[in-house]
């Protein structure tokens, strides 16, 4: 039993100590038998605190360590490493989660939170007293990463991993790659269109021997765990033969009588049931949208490449890590929100497609556009709605769009109804450039935003402009552009399959926004790009490279060091009934005869430490390291001792 235990209780700035009386916790446990030292610290994870713990272990020859701070998902590895560096086996360290499970969960009850924190630290002390030293177990890890989403983030991550020698399954739900960036005809501050960027990236992944691209594919099941995820992939056919005739396919698209709203152009145009979103799109074969296809047979009459006999495929794959880069959806305004529903009110993504379609004159619904009113923060920074966050990209994207309209068309007048322009970092020069072009900026508070109304055939945008002492200003606009922000994907079924937690903003949540920004609480699953929160392309690629590096670190050696938490049999009391072997899902338990007695034996390299064998043993002869009767029952007693 450990009798020189060091206890460190973290304030976490004020995240814990705003709700938990940390000094009271420290004093409540300092006289418990076996506790050598009990201290509180402002940030246990800070270098200076780690150094103190290190020195205490060395100088006071501590044989047990308790750190009470945030979730162990965040800093268990930090303090394990401190223990190991100081020569203390890391399995003699027990963590008490007094932030997520105490101070934050009970921020409404400070007294209750403090009492619960005391009990949690007492339980951890009780656990560490009975702990024993263990050595890690090594397992093989698949040197394969599944990258979900072939947008800019997914493709960049796939290329990076493949260049590092890792096999990549790049899985895209749509029939074509590129995601949202493929919808962009111009990119801010680079002389390259979104489509050209996607083409360049596609060519790089297409010729890479380590990358296998699946389109029309989605993961429908996930099993296993880090190092060995078992995923089931459903692949929907394109209904186009592998060796196809391009000219015939063009005719097939021409003759298709079906017309549906074109998602790619944000529903401002129509497309056929057999389609490509744009001529140079990759992969270059078109696809048949089978949900809208009427099977009229017109395409088959002119094209020998159509094959309606193609069937859905299911593939079983094993991968070491999963990198999720599934992107975002643009916010869709609600009816009447800033005039949404009027025939001259569009969103920014729609407006950018309109600009691409209009050459000399900017025309929408048959009318030439000269006066443009941009209304900012639609679907972002909402006062009443759920989207409290800033979508980051939209101020810059709008200002850059305005520059383009001035360059492409004559006599454009632009009015920017904003709530404060956020062109952070190097993007500030774009704001300056637009200001020089003579655009008018009108600013309002969030509780008194601009309004859009029809007066006869005129569209009037009104605002009380705080830059001119709340003067009410009216603008007659030919076109109102709603600067819509980013939202999580409406169809987020992959998140449910992978069980990735979401934050309050409904985007996928990282373990820690600063220290572990691309890892999720599901070991082995990383996140990148705008599925995690609003990001521009630069930020998406940054996070993609970060996630690729993290996934690489999981699979690169082909081996993972796992926790040595495995079962063991008490040979004296075991009489072999076989129930444990029946309960084990891994066939890790075998009958052996030792000294003339039939007993169970655990295969240490096969045991995964699930503990399913523990409760079925009628003679209670099986224990699991880290979760022994002594440890669990002492913790229960400590918790109960109030």
């Amino acid at each position: 039993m450990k009798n020189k235990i060091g206890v460190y209780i973290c304030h976490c700035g004020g995240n814990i100590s705003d709700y938990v009386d940390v000094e009271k916790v420290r004093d409540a446990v300092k006289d418990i038998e076996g506790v050598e030292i009990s201290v509180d610290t402002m940030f246990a994870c800070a270098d200076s605190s780690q150094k103190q713990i290190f020195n205490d272990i060395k100088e006071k020859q501590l044989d047990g360590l308790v750190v009470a701070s945030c979730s162990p998902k965040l800093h268990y590895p930090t303090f394990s490493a401190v223990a190991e560096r100081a020569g203390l086996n890391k399995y003699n360290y027990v963590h008490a989660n007094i932030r997520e499970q105490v101070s934050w969960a009970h921020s409404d009850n400070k007294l209750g939170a403090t009492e619960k924190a005391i009990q949690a630290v007492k339980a951890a002390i009780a656990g560490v007293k009975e702990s024993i030293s263990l050595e890690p177990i090594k397992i093989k890890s698949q040197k394969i990463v599944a990258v979900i989403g072939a947008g800019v983030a997914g493709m960049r991550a796939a290329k990076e991993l493949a260049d590092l020698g890792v096999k990549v399954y790049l899985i895209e739900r749509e029939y074509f790659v590129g995601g949202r960036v493929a919808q962009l005809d111009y990119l801010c501050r680079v002389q390259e269109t979104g489509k050209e960027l996607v083409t360049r990236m596609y060519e790089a992944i297409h010729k890479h021997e380590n990358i296998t691209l699946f389109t029309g594919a989605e993961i429908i099941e996930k099993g296993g765990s880090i190092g060995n995820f078992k995923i089931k992939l459903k692949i929907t056919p394109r209904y186009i033969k592998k060796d196809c005739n391009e000219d015939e396919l063009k005719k097939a698209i021409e003759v298709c009588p079906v017309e549906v709203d074109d998602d790619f152009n944000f529903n401002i145009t129509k497309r056929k049931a057999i389609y490509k979103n744009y001529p140079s799109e990759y992969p270059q074969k078109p696809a048949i949208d089978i949900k809208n296809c009427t099977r009229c047979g017109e395409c088959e009459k002119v094209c020998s490449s159509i094959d309606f006999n193609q069937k859905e495929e299911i593939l079983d794959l094993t991968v070491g890590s999963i990198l999720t880069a599934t992107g975002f959806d643009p916010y869709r305004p609600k009816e009447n929100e800033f005039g949404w529903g009027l025939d001259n009110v569009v969103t920014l993504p729609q407006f950018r497609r309109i600009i691409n379609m209009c050459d000399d004159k900017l025309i929408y619904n048959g009318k030439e556009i000269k006066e443009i009113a941009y209304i900012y923060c639609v679907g972002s920074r909402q006062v009443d709605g759920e989207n409290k966050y800033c979508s980051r990209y939209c101020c810059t994207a709008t200002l850059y769009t305005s520059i383009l309209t001035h360059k492409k068309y004559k006599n454009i007048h632009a009015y920017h109804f904003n709530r404060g322009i956020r062109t952070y970092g190097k993007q500030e020069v774009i704001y300056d450039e637009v200001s020089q072009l003579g655009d008018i900026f009108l600013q309002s508070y969030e509780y008194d935003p601009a309004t859009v109304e029809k007066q006869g055939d005129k569209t009037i945008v009104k605002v009380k402009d705080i830059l001119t002492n709340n003067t009410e200003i009216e603008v007659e606009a030919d076109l109102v552009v709603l600067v819509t922000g980013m939202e999580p994907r409406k169809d987020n079924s992959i998140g449910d399959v992978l069980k990735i937690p979401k934050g309050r903003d409904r985007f996928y949540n990282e373990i820690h926004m600063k220290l572990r920004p691309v890892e999720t609480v599901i070991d082995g699953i990383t996140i990148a790009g705008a599925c995690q929160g609003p990001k521009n392309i630069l930020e998406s690629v940054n996070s993609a490279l970060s996630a690729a590096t993290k996934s690489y670190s999981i699979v690169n050696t082909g081996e993972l060091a796992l926790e040595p938490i495995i079962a063991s049999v008490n040979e004296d009391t075991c009489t072999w009934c076989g129930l444990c072997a029946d309960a084990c899902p891994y066939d890790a338990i075998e009958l052996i005869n030792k000294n003339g007695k039939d007993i169970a034996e655990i295969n240490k390299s096969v045991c995964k430490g699930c503990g399913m064998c523990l409760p079925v043993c009628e003679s209670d002869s099986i224990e699991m390291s880290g979760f022994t009767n002594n440890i669990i029952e002492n913790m229960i007693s400590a918790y109960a001792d109030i």
Partner: protein
Amino acid sequence: MSSSGKDMPKILVFSTEKISDPAIDMAGLLKLHYPPRVYIISLPCSSAVKPRWILKAFSEGFDGVFIAADGTDCPYGESCTDKTGAIIKQTQDMLKEKGIEPAKLRMAAICSICSEAFVKQMKNFTEYLVNQKTN
């Protein structure tokens, strides 16, 4: 300062490191409040809970025990739900023999994103145990 709720029932939760722990953590992150006298012990898998641990909790004065089960998300296999269910059934029979209301042992699948479900379970269970005490 508000009351710590010392007269409130004490609940021991057996959670799981990979599945229900993240949900319980996220409940805190989202400031979804539940009664503070809910104490948590994490295990690798909910079908590792020994009946003797549950009995120990009741003998030490806990009013209720809740198994935040892996359910179908268990990384160790599909049999988890049935196995955890069997442990609960067996332990409830043992509680009955000891004159303890079997309903004081509850189980529900809490997936890694089921924070709201966890909070709801804790509030309902606390309410049930309060009613048991007053009746």
